[in-house]
C-alpha cells in the first residue's frame, strides 16, 4: 500500500467537506485509478471527477501517471486567479 496526502481546493473542498485527507492506495495506482476510487468511495465527489485537475507533488498529472510513494496529491477545478 501507499499512504498519500490528498488536498482539496475550491469546489472540491466544499464537496469533500475537508481541506485534506490521508489515503491508503494500492501501489502503482494511476491518476485514473485514483479518480475511480474517489468516485466509488466519495459519492459527493463523483460528479467532479470528469473535469477535475489533479497534481502529484505540485505538478499537473494526467490519467496514465502512476502515483509515487508518499505523494502529495491535490484535486481542484480549472484555476481562476488574477
Amino acid at each position: 500500500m501507499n499512504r498519500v496526502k490528498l488536498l482539496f481546493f475550491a469546489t472540491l473542498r466544499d464537496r469533500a467537506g475537508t481541506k485534506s485527507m490521508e489515503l491508503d492506495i494500492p501501489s502503482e495506482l494511476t491518476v485514473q485509478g485514483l479518480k475511480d476510487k474517489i468516485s466509488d468511495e466519495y459519492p459527493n465527489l463523483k460528479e467532479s471527477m470528469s473535469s477535475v485537475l489533479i497534481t502529484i507533488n505540485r505538478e499537473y498529472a494526467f490519467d496514465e501517471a502512476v502515483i509515487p510513494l508518499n505523494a502529495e496529491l491535490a484535486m481542484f477545478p480549472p484555476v481562476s486567479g488574477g
Partner: protein
Amino acid sequence: MNFPTIFSITEDEIDLNDLLARITLTSTGAAAIFAGMVRGETTRGDAHETEYLEYEAYIPMAEAKMKQVAEEIRAKWSVIEGIAIVQRIGKLYPKTPTVLIACTAAHRDTGVFEAARYGIDRLKEIVPIWKKEVSPNGEFWVEGDYIPKAGE
C-alpha cells in the same frame, strides 16, 4: 546578469512602489505593469454586482508556478530585467487590487508590454488560485476553462 524575480502569494496589501523599486536596475528605463482589481459592477456578458471575492491558493504550488511563468517570460523576452508576480488572497472588496504583474526593461520597445500581458495570461492558466464570487444573489466559485498540458 542577476535579474530580480519576485513571486508571492500574500494576504497583505500589494505595495506597487516597493515592488517597482525592487525590479528597477540602474539599466532600467521602462516598466509595464498590469494590475487586476475586484470589479464591483460587471456590465459585459452576464451583468451582475459583486459584494466581494474570496481568493484561495495552493500556496507552495502557486509560488512554484509563478516562478515557472517568470522563467517562460525570460525565455521569450531575454531583454526583460526585473519581474514581479504577486497575487493577493483572502476576502477582497471592489476596487481592491488583487494581482500585479510587472516587467522592467531598458526601453519600452523591447517587448516589455507583451511580457507583462503574457504573465497575467499564464497566471490565469496554470497558477493554482481560485476565487469565490459573493454577490447579493448568492455565492459561487469561479472556475477557469484552461486544462494544463503535460509539462505545464
